[in-house]
C-alpha cells in the first residue's frame, strides 16, 4: 500500500492582506440588518418578522399595518427608534474610540477620555435630582461641552494638546466631574432619582424615542468626517514628527479631530448615558478583523459597534423580561467573554 506523501512544508505564505479587506464589511452589514429585524420582533410582545416589516413599511411608504394599533405602536414608535438609537450610538462610540486611540496613541483610550461623559453626567445628574428630566439631553450635552472646554483648555495652557497632556487633562477633568456627581448623589438623591441616575451612569437606551433618536443620528452624522480621517490617523500613528515630515499639520489635525470626537460623544451620551466597553473594545475587535490601517478599520468599527450595541440592547430589554437591565451592564457582560474568545482564537498582535 502506498501512501501519498504529505505536501511539502513550505514557508508560511504571506497573509493575503488585500483579500481579507472586503468580507467583514459585507458580513457585518448583513448581521446588522438581521439583528435589527430580530430586535424589532422580540420583547414583551412578540411580533412575526413579516408583520414587523409590514408595520414599518406601512408607516414609511404607506399602506395598512398588519398589526393591531398597540402592536403597531410597539414596533414603530418604541422599538424602531430604539434600534436606530442603538445603531447610531454604537457606531459613533466605536468610531470615536478608534480615532481617540490613534490620536493619543494609547490602546486604553476610549470616547470618554476627554472627560466628556463625566461632564455630561454632571449635567444629567443635576437635572435628574431636580426633576427636570425633559431637558436631560440638553443638560448632558452642555455638561459634556464644558468638560471638553476644560480639558482642551488645560492641555493648551500647559503647552499644547500632545497625547500625554491630552490624556492627563482628561483624567483631571473627569475626576473633578465624577466627584461632583458623587457629591450630588450622596447629598440629594433618593429612591427613584437614585435609580434613574444609576441607570444613566451605566448607560441605557430605555429612554430612546422619536424625540431622542434623531439626536443620536445627528451625532453619528457628525462622525462622518471622522470616517474620512483614516489617512491622517495612519500618518499620526507613525509619530508626530514623521507625520509632520509627510506634510500633515499635526497640531491642527489633532485639535480638529479631538473636538469632533468630543462633539460626537457629547451628542451620543446625551441620549444614552455613558455606555462603556463599546468605544474601548470594539475598535480592538475590528483591528483583529481587518488590521490597523484606518481607512479600512473605521467603517468596520462603525458597523461592528452598531451590531454590538444593538444586540446588547436587545438582550438587555428582552432577556430579563419584565425587568430591563441598563445596556452598559450587558455590553460588558457579553462583550468581555466575546472579546476574550476573539483574542484566543484570532490573531492578536497587540
Amino acid at each position, binding site marked *: 500500500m502506498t501512501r501519498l506523501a504529505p505536501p511539502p512544508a513550505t514557508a508560511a505564505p*504571506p*497573509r*493575503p*492582506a488585500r483579500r481579507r479587506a472586503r468580507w467583514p464589511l459585507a458580513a457585518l452589514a448583513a448581521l446588522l440588518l438581521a439583528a435589527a429585524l430580530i430586535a424589532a420582533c422580540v420583547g414583551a410582545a412578540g411580533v412575526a418578522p413579516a408583520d414587523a416589516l409590514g408595520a414599518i413599511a406601512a408607516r414609511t411608504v404607506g399602506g395598512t399595518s398588519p398589526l393591531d394599533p398597540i402592536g403597531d405602536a410597539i414596533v414603530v414608535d418604541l422599538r424602531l427608534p430604539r434600534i436606530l438609537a442603538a445603531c447610531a450610538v454604537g457606531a459613533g462610540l466605536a468610531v470615536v474610540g478608534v480615532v481617540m486611540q490613534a490620536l493619543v*496613541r494609547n490602546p486604553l483610550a476610549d470616547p470618554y477620555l476627554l472627560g466628556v461623559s463625566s461632564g455630561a453626567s454632571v449635567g444629567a445628574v443635576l437635572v435628574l435630582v431636580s426633576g427636570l428630566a425633559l431637558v436631560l439631553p440638553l443638560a448632558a450635552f452642555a455638561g459634556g461641552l464644558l468638560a471638553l472646554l476644560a480639558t482642551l483648555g488645560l492641555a493648551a495652557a500647559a*503647552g*499644547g494638546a500632545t497625547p500625554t497632556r491630552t490624556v492627563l487633562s482628561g483624567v483631571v477633568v473627569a475626576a473633578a466631574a465624577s466627584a461632583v456627581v458623587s457629591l450630588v448623589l450622596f447629598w440629594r438623591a433618593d429612591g427613584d432619582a437614585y435609580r434613574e441616575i444609576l441607570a444613566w451612569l451605566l448607560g441605557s437606551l430605555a429612554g430612546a424615542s422619536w424625540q431622542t433618536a434623531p439626536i443620536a443620528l445627528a451625532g453619528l452624522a457628525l462622525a462622518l468626517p471622522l470616517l*474620512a480621517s*483614516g*489617512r491622517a490617523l*495612519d*500618518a499620526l*500613528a*507613525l*509619530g508626530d*514628527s*514623521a507625520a*509632520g*515630515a*509627510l*506634510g*500633515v*499639520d499635526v497640531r491642527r489635525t489633532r485639535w480638529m479631530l479631538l473636538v469632533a470626537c468630543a462633539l460626537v460623544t457629547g451628542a451620543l451620551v446625551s441620549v444614552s448615558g455613558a455606555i462603556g466597553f463599546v468605544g474601548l473594545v470594539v475598535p480592538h475587535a475590528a*483591528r483583529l478583523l481587518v*488590521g*490597523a*490601517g484606518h*481607512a479600512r478599520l473605521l467603517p468596520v468599527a462603525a458597523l461592528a459597534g452598531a451590531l454590538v450595541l444593538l444586540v446588547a440592547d436587545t438582550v438587555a430589554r428582552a432577556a430579563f423580561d419584565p425587568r430591563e437591565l441598563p445596556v452598559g451592564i450587558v455590553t460588558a457582560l457579553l462583550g468581555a467573554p466575546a472579546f476574550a474568545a476573539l483574542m484566543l482564537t484570532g490573531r492578536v*498582535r*497587540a
Partner: protein
Amino acid sequence: MHGLAVDALSVVAGSRALVDAASWSAPSGAITALVGPNGAGKSTTLRAVAGLVPDRARASGAVLLDGERLDALPARERARRVALVEQSTEVPPQLTAREAVRLGRTPHHRLLGFSIGDDAIVDAALGDAGAATLADRRLGELSGGELQRVHLARALAQQPRLLLLDEPTNHLDVAWQLELLALVRRLAADIPVVMTLHDLALAATHADRVVLLDGGRVAAEGAPDAVLSPARIRAAYGVEAEIDAAPGGVAIRYRRLEDPA
C-alpha cells in the same frame, strides 16, 4: 545651484541656539554626511531642513533646493520635495509594510485621498528599498534592518528630490549597515542625500562630503579626508584619533587625551 544649499540656518529655543547660523551645501548625486559630537545640532539641522522645528523653538535662515526656497513652502509642498527618515520612528505594530509605505503618498494626495498610480509607485518604492518581500508583513514582526528598509521605502514613495536620513545605521549589525549604505549609494544617483552619522569611519568611507558641526556651528566642510583630520576630531570631540585609510575603507582608532599613546 543643483542640490541643497543651507544658508545661515539657525534654530533658537528661548535664548539657546541649537543651530547657530550654519551654512553648508549638499550637491545632487552625492552623499553628504553630517557629523559632530552629541548636542552639535545634527538632528536638529536635519529636521529643520525638513521643516520640523521643536516646540517653542524658532528657525531662521534659508534652505534652498535646486534654487527654490524650501522654508517658504507650505508643509505639504515641502513634503513633496523632501523626505526624512528619523532615528526612532515608533511604528504601529499592526500596520503592514505596504500600508506604511503607502503613507509616503500622503503629501501627493488630493482632498479625498484618491490618487491614481499610487499602487505602482508604492510597489516601485518597496522594490528600490529592497523591501518587496516584506510588503504584506506587519511592522511588529520585522527586525531593525527590515524596518529601516520599510522607512526608506516610505521616503522613496514620497518621490522626493532630497533625502534626509538621521543615523540610518543605528541599531543595525555590520552586514545590514553595509547593505543600507550600498542602497543609499544607489538612491543618491540623482538626488542629494544627507545623513547624520556618529561613526566617523563610516562617514569617511561612504560619504562624498562631510559637514562637521560643533556647538550648532559648521566647524568644517568638504571632502572626508580633509574634514576628518586628527586635529579637527580633537577640536570637536576632545579625543585623539589615529586614521588608517586603506583602499577598502577607513579605520579610526580613538584614545582619550589623558591616556598614554
